[in-house]
């Protein structure tokens, strides 16, 4: 196979970090390249060299490569954050699609585990998103599901209902089929328990 150079790896890593909603650790990055190397150890060295170069490149720009608990992340540096604040004063920030989807899953399907959310969303939901939702006071841990691994069950809070002006979760607009949202209807049918084996 064609060997990737440090510069090529650096560029790819940069786009990965920009496109991911989440910090990426070395293992996650290695996974992306797994068809590109025979020897993991030497590729790992290449990757680390690429990250070093990327860090130096960033110094000339308004961004910085930092390492947080869950991996590497590119972020706007301090000097330039002031400018972003100016922008946000006029165009307020918005939540990512991933966060909205996670919140929607919890609201509609609670109590729900992270694994169940992932199964429907088709991607791994980051712990960061769940933490942000908890910090915002919209989501809380309800307990643990009695299945192997004892995963945490999540649900929404009173503050969530207050924010959206709802009296109860039952006031959420129901979704009648996969395609469309129907206006709230008053149909009363005996409730049916849905098996929620995972």
């Amino acid at each position: 196979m064609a060997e990737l150079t440090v510069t090529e790896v650096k560029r790819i890593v940069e786009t990965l970090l920009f496109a991911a909603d989440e910090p990426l650790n070395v293992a996650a990055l290695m996974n992306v390249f797994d068809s590109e190397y025979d020897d993991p150890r030497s590729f790992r060295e290449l990757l680390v060299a690429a990250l070093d170069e990327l860090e130096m490149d960033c110094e000339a720009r308004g961004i910085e490569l930092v390492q947080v608990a869950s991996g590497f992340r590119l972020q706007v540096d301090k000097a330039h954050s002031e400018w972003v604040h100016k922008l946000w004063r006029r165009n307020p920030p918005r939540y990512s699609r991933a966060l909205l989807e996670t919140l929607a899953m919890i609201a509609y399907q609670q109590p729900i585990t992270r694994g169940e959310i992932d199964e429907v969303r088709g991607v791994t939901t980051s712990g960061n998103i769940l933490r942000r939702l908890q910090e915002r006071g919209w989501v809380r841990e309800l307990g643990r599901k009695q299945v192997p691994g004892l995963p945490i069950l999540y649900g929404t809070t009173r503050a969530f209902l207050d924010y959206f002006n709802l009296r109860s979760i039952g006031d959420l607009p129901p979704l009648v089929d996969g395609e469309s949202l129907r206006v709230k209807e008053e149909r009363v049918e005996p409730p049916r328990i849905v098996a929620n084996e995972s």
Partner: protein
Amino acid sequence: MPDELANQTTEELALNRDNSMPYQARIGDKSIEELPNDLHVPPDAMIVMLESFEGPLDLLLYLIRKQNLNILEIRLADIADQYMQYIEMMSTLRLQLAGEYLVIAATLMVIKSRALLPQLESDEEEEANPEAELRRRLQEYERLKNASERLDALPRVDREVHVVHAPLAESYAPEVQPEIELKELMVAFADVIQRSKLYQQHRITRTTISVRERMTDIIGKLEKSEEQVPFDALFDVREGKVSLIASLLAILELMRSSLVRVTQQRPFAPIFVGLAEATSVG
């Protein structure tokens, strides 16, 4: 063609027509051109196939393409019978047949009867020509179909286009929190559900929500009280029968998942409900 089909059952008929459908039969890497007549096609599969048509024009277009002809070459009278066979199949399978299918069927019958009377062609200039009109509609629909396929093929956000993003460092992040609207939440949920093939339609219903909500409520109540809660305190008779059933089902579901424990000292004694040991919440 119509005569040779006349004696076949609708199922056999569908099999014969099935070869160029997107649902081809294969054994290994060999696609099956000729199907044995006695092979049973499950009605479900037939329904999926028939429902894959977007409407009568889509069905007609499919019949025309199957003959490797284009809209301007084909004699619409020739495919009128095939069209009618499909309509019959749909009603045999009790598919809900949109009125539009019948309107086109009637038009095709008119076209066919005119084709049987060639001597009337001199009139065609004056009165409306239903064949020309239908041909025009088919052309329009074909253009639309092409246009929507091209639209679908455009690179788009979340599929080919990845917008780059970098957050601010947490320490410089502003106190201002993003605002969202309930509508955005609904759209996000609709998207997720649509994307997921794992969920069946019936899993997403209002009633499902109410039982799940009840489960959350009950856990909340149990958390608030230090001790176990009397079983009947978890019910509010003013809520009506349906809600009471929902509460009961919620408790049963919580028991099943070992999230709550229900205890009774002796027969006919009060029943108490409490959180199971492992569910202590931090």
